[in-house]
Each structure stands twice: as structure tokens, then as C-alpha cells.
């Protein structure tokens, strides 16, 4: 046996292609995320990075390839070239093991903060109410919102809402976390508080895939950076390599524009 310390990856993406109508938005994307690894995906808008993230928990269907979570294929099962969509129940069971944080927070507006965090553990995992509440309170304290338990989401700032959303995802005790541009909808002065919570998670060893435009954060926190353009992974590697010595012209242009302050 080889000595390579390579257990089953937390996420394995294998030749995934996706079309929106005739437009190919993901073009044979392959990559893997190891347990405990924090991967940041960067790239211009329309590069397919958000779509890739949404394919990982099957919020988007994809037409070719396979994505495995801890070795188990999500979404489709099949042998001999046949792809069969797995039943919604099984997909949902797998999604419950993946936390996801959205650009627009998507807190449930009709529930208070505590209920937002408790509802999935109680209703999906069957955690006893008392226990779920204790976990929720603990998580909300960790993200600095222990005093907002009874607030309704509409009364919170964007940064507070996003921190609740992170706590909501963590409450399911997920094996890994997906972040879809978690700070893009925030006022600049609120970005820091959300990135702070994410940084803490990385330090705790959470497996994470983060789509973001926060280059500084990527540089400081990521174990690996993936650069996507036009549905393909163009370049990937440790942040210092990618930012310090970009190989492809695409990435060079992208970073140059970024430094010049273009909105991408």
C-alpha cells in the first residue's frame, strides 16, 4: 500500500458538467476537499463557482459526473452509464449533513432567532427540544448573539443575520460547511464580524468550501484556493502560490483587476 495519507475525501467532485439550456456553466470540474481543509473558491462572476457550490448539496442538478460526500454519491446513483436520480428523502438526508450559508442569509422571517436555529435539529433530526435549545443558545453565544434569542430576523443587521444563519447551519452538527458569498450582501463595516466567525471555524478544523470575493480573507485563512473561470477550474493551490505567483494569464488579469479595485 502507498504511504500517501489520503483517506476518503470529504468532498470528491468528479468530472461534473452542467448546462443551463445550451449554456455549459460547469465544464468537467474535478477536485477534492480533504477533511479539515478550508478551500476558498474565487473567480469572476459567471465563472460557475456558486453553481458548483450549489451542486455539492444538489440545490442544482448536474447532468454529468459525480459528487461524493464521504464516499457516498449525492443525487444520482447508477451503474453502467445509467444515472438515476435518488429519491428526495435520501438527498435530504445527505443535505442535512452539509451546512450551507447563503449570500442573502435566507433566515426564516416568521421565526425568531432561537427558533431559526432550533427548527431543523428538532424537526429533521428529532433532537429533543430542550437539548436543541441548549445547543442553539450555545451556538448563538459563540457567534456573539446570545442577547438576540427572541429577536425577529427583520430587526437584525445584515451581519447579525448572517451570523444567525451560520449558527443555524452549525446546529445540525454538519460534517462540512458551504459558504456562498456570505459577505457580498453586507455593508462593508459588517463584513468583519462574519469573517471573524468563519475564521474561528477554520481554526476549529471544520471542513469548509467558501465562495467569496474577500481576497484578503482567502489569503490569510484558506488552506487552498481554487480559481474558476468559464465553468472550469483554471488554477488551484496554496494561497501564497496563487496570489504570489499566478501561472495562468486569466488569474493574473483577475488579480490585477482586483488590486485596481474593479468590482468583479
Amino acid at each position, binding site marked *: 500500500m502507498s504511504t500517501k495519507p489520503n483517506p476518503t475525501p470529504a468532498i470528491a467532485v468528479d468530472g461534473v458538467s452542467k448546462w443551463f439550456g445550451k449554456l455549459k456553466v460547469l465544464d468537467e470540474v474535478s477536485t477534492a476537499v480533504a477533511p479539515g481543509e478550508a478551500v476558498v473558491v474565487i473567480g469572476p462572476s459567471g465563472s460557475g463557482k456558486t453553481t458548483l457550490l450549489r451542486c455539492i*448539496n444538489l*440545490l442544482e442538478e448536474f447532468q454529468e459526473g459525480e459528487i461524493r460526500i464521504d464516499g457516498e454519491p449525492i443525487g444520482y446513483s447508477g451503474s453502467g452509464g445509467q444515472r438515476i436520480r435518488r429519491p*428526495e*428523502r435520501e*438527498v*435530504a*438526508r445527505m*443535505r*442535512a*449533513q*452539509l*451546512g*450551507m450559508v*447563503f449570500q*442573502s*442569509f*435566507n*433566515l*426564516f*422571517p*416568521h421565526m425568531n432567532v432561537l427558533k431559526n436555529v432550533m*427548527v*431543523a435539529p428538532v*424537526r*429533521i*433530526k428529532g433532537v429533543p427540544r430542550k437539548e436543541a435549545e441548549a445547543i442553539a443558545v450555545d451556538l448563538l453565544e459563540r457567534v456573539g448573539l446570545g442577547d438576540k434569542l427572541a429577536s425577529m430576523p*427583520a430587526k437584525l443587521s445584515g451581519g447579525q443575520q448572517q451570523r444567525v*444563519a451560520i449558527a*443555524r*447551519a452549525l446546529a*445540525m452538527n454538519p460534517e462540512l460547511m458551504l459558504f456562498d458569498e456570505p459577505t457580498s450582501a453586507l455593508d462593508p463595516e459588517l463584513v468583519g464580524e462574519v469573517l471573524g466567525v468563519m475564521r474561528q471555524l477554520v481554526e476549529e478544523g471544520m471542513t469548509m468550501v467558501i465562495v467569496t470575493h474577500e481576497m484578503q480573507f482567502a489569503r490569510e485563512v484558506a488552506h487552498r484556493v481554487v480559481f474558476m473561470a468559464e465553468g472550469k477550474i483554471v488554477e488551484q493551490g496554496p494561497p501564497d502560490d496563487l496570489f504570489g505567483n499566478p501561472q495562468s494569464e486569466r488569474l493574473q488579469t483577475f488579480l490585477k483587476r482586483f488590486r485596481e479595485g474593479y468590482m468583479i
Partner: protein
Amino acid sequence: MFDILIANGHLLLAGAVVTLYLSAGAAAMAAVLGAGLALLQLFAFWPLRLLVEAYLYIMRGVPLLVLLFAMYYMLPYAGVNVNPTAGGMVVIALYFSAFMSEVFRGAILAVPKGQWDAARALGMFGRTMMVIVVAPQALRLAGPPFVNTCIMLVKGTSLVSIIGLLEVTMAGRQIVERTLAPFQIFTGVAVIYFLICYSLSVYGRYLERRTSYVH
């Protein structure tokens, strides 16, 4: 000036009571039926969906009066003896269920996509997702158009006077035949409808204000 109306007011009020319970009963039935139709239209297997579409097409294209006549004339031939009040109530409910289904369908579709995403990402699906996340928000959004449909329904109940039900419009006609005072009496009838419908629309506007700062 309104002496005849005052003298016959009690008859109109008795009719108004019938109008009210006819409306309430039909609205409750139409709401339940409409919500079911909306769910089928959105989520059912296609043959069933097609059937629902056909039902909605008929209900939206045929006048309520024709449906009431159809019930009134056809059921006796089929050997079914219906109580006209119950029959009228059911026909009105069937007719307005088509409009209610539109209300609920619109409200479900108006729940932002991010809410469905968030629910799915937490591992919810099917009925759990509907009950916990979609329905509470959809019902809130459905409030104002639901009330508007109820107003149409209340006005629609006036049609059962034509098949002989003694509600407020019929009461008005009977009094007019006796007193030959159509201005007074039909003004009284109109005022009764206005009071019912206007209070509903005030309530609808209140709901609208309340919905607007949720999202």
C-alpha cells in the same frame, strides 16, 4: 323619506343573516378546496395536474349564474333532492375555489426562492418543508388577495336570489314587489352589502400593511 325602508328593515336584516352565513360557509369551503387545488396544480403528477387545470378552466370561463342554474335544474332530473341553501353554498364554493386556488398558488410562488433553498439545505423536503417554512409565509402573503376574493364571493351570493333563495337581495325584491319603492329598498340592500364588503376591505388593507414589512 326612508319610511318604507325603515318599516321593512327587519326583513332585510333577516335576509342579511342568510347572506352572511351563506358567505361564511362558502368562503370556508372555497378556501380549503382552493388551497388543495393550488397544491395539486403546483406539485401533483401531471395527469392530475391536467385535471385540475381543466376544472379551473371551466370554473373561470362559465358564469356563476349558469352553474347555479345547472345545479337547480339538473340535480332534480338526476333524482337528487338538494336543499337549495346547501346547494347554492356548494356551487358558490366550487366556483370561487378556482379563484382561491389562484390566490394560494400566487402566494406559494411568491415565497422567495432563498427560503426554499435554505429549507432544503437544512435537509427539509416535501410536507415538512411546506409546513415549517413555505406555508406560514405563503398564508401571510395570501391574506390581502384572499380578502379580496371573499368580497367577490359575498357579492356573488346575491345570485342565489335568482334560484329563489331568500337572502338579502331576494328579500329586497320581494319587498319592492309589494311596496313599489325600489330606490329605498335597493339602497338599503346595497348598504348592507357595502357594510359587509367594506369592512372586509378595510381588514384586507390592514393585512397588506402588516405583510409589507415581514420580508
